[in-house]
């Protein structure tokens, strides 16, 4: 028996991709309207892992709510925590010791590399190549080990606290990071040989999912998604926090706006992260790793906003305080949510097979979108 296919009035076919689909990297549900193989509309249905983290945070103290944010963008756990502690520190006017600042930046950049590694492996797998996944995980594993030693966790790390970091660095930290840099540099050229230079990959990514500069800004895209379209949006450069204004690195900009441009931004960003780590790893200042803070934090009445650059883009934390021990309202501006909203615009007129390449280069993490 042939099942009836859902069609629109114009005779276009409606299909569901997800919620359980390998290419969506989580439980994302796309309702796609197709004319033959050409996409006419992509309608994302979100919320399959919505936990209402913002509401939850309203009943958590300023120390507790930070831990929840690791579960949003779990690949940028440290950087999410960073956004939150910066916001609390801004409200409390806490001075962070120089040592803690450097440790934070080191952790952020290691996280960024780990996140981009996973993206690279998973995206290559989406496009049909299985081997790159193992290459990416070989290096990523080293970062996970470094994290495990110092923070005690491999994925949802909680290491940043208001005023600094939670614990002193593990004695092996510097050595292992240096080992990782050597390993990464010896292997990173393989990435280009395996994927970047491959003509099949290039054909599948070039001129696919083109997003113009104006649209990228209008849709609120940030991070590598927007930088692939030529938008200057690196928060580390525009609104430097911690020691980002003292280290040398380049903001990677590509102008083509297609999937390949977004791919190249992330590949080149990994090299910049290595550059930052190299400058800081031998120059971690001595001193306290945490400023002295009160046991119970109370933010003064007012509104505080902080922004950091995660692996996916601009992460904003907006705290409205009534002067109590818990936030009155908290809003997380997650990069994935805005980046996803551009998918419909990108995909229209493209082919169904190319949708995987577009989603792959948007680097979607679904808990980050649903929150």
């Amino acid at each position, binding site marked *: 028996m042939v099942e009836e296919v859902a069609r629109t009035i114009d005779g276009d076919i409606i299909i569901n991709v997800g919620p359980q689909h390998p290419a969506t990297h989580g439980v994302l549900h796309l309702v796609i309207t197709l004319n033959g193989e050409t996409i006419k509309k992509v309608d994302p249905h979100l919320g399959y892992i919505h936990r209402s983290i913002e509401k939850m945070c309203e009943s958590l103290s300023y120390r507790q709510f930070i831990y929840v944010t690791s579960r949003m963008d779990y690949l940028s756990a440290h950087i999410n925590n960073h956004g939150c502690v910066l916001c609390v520190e801004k409200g409390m006017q806490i001075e962070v010791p120089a040592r803690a600042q450097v440790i934070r930046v080191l952790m952020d950049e290691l996280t960024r590399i780990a996140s981009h590694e996973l993206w690279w492996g998973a995206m290559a797998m989406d496009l049909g190549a299985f081997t790159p996944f193992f290459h990416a995980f070989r290096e990523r594993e080293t970062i996970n080990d470094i994290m495990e030693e110092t923070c005690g966790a491999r994925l949802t790390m909680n290491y940043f606290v208001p005023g600094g970091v939670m614990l002193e660095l593990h004695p092996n930290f510097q050595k292992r990071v240096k080992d990782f840099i050597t390993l990464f540099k010896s292997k990173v050229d393989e990435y280009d040989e395996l994927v970047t230079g491959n003509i099949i990959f290039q054909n599948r990514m070039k001129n696919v999912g083109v997003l113009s500069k104006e649209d990228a*800004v209008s849709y609120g895209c940030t991070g590598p998604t927007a930088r692939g379209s030529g938008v200057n949006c690196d928060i580390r450069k525009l609104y430097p926090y911690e020691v980002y204004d003292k280290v040398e690195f380049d903001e990677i900009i590509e102008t083509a706006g297609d999937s390949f441009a977004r791919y190249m931004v992330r590949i080149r960003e990994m090299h910049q992260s290595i550059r930052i780590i190299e400058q800081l790893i031998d120059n971690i200042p001595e001193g306290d790793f945490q400023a002295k803070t009160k046991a119970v934090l109370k933010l003064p009445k007012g509104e505080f906003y902080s922004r950091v650059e995660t692996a996916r883009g601009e992460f904003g934390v907006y705290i409205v305080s009534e002067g109590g021990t818990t936030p009155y*309202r908290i809003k997380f501006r997650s990069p994935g*949510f805005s980046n996803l909203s551009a998918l419909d615009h990108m995909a229209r007129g493209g082919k169904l097979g190319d949708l995987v390449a577009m989603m792959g280069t948007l680097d979607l993490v679904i808990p980050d979108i649903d929150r």
Partner: protein
Amino acid sequence: MNIEELKIKIAELLPSATFEDGEWLTINIEPKDWPSFAQQLRYDEQLKFDFLFCLTCIDWKTHLTMVYHLTSTTFRHNIVLKAKLDRTNPEIETVSNIWKTAIFHEREVYEMFGVNFINHPDLRLLILPDGWEGKNPMRKDFEDPINMIRL
């Protein structure tokens, strides 16, 4: 432009606006002024606020406040806009025709706070499952007997 220059410029454009102190210039506006004022903010040659980086709502138990964070990718200045809405029948004009990111963010505010965005092209539930229309989980008086987590 710095905060003082922005203040003068915006007072010219919208005399009824009131200002608040803060990290960025905070402007209180009337919901009825919002559509035309938003157009001016976006297209004025000296302002060019083309990036709406945060759109949210706050429930103050007596009223709702819509909060818009804007930045300009050309001049790099930021402002915050606030509009006070009635709690029983909150309505404000959409800005999704000016900043397309508002399409998603306004849908989120619609389901979480019940704000009705006039002329929004596609105002329906985004995150919540079907059947949640009219129940707004982010409001302070929301009660869910089954799934409510109290900490």
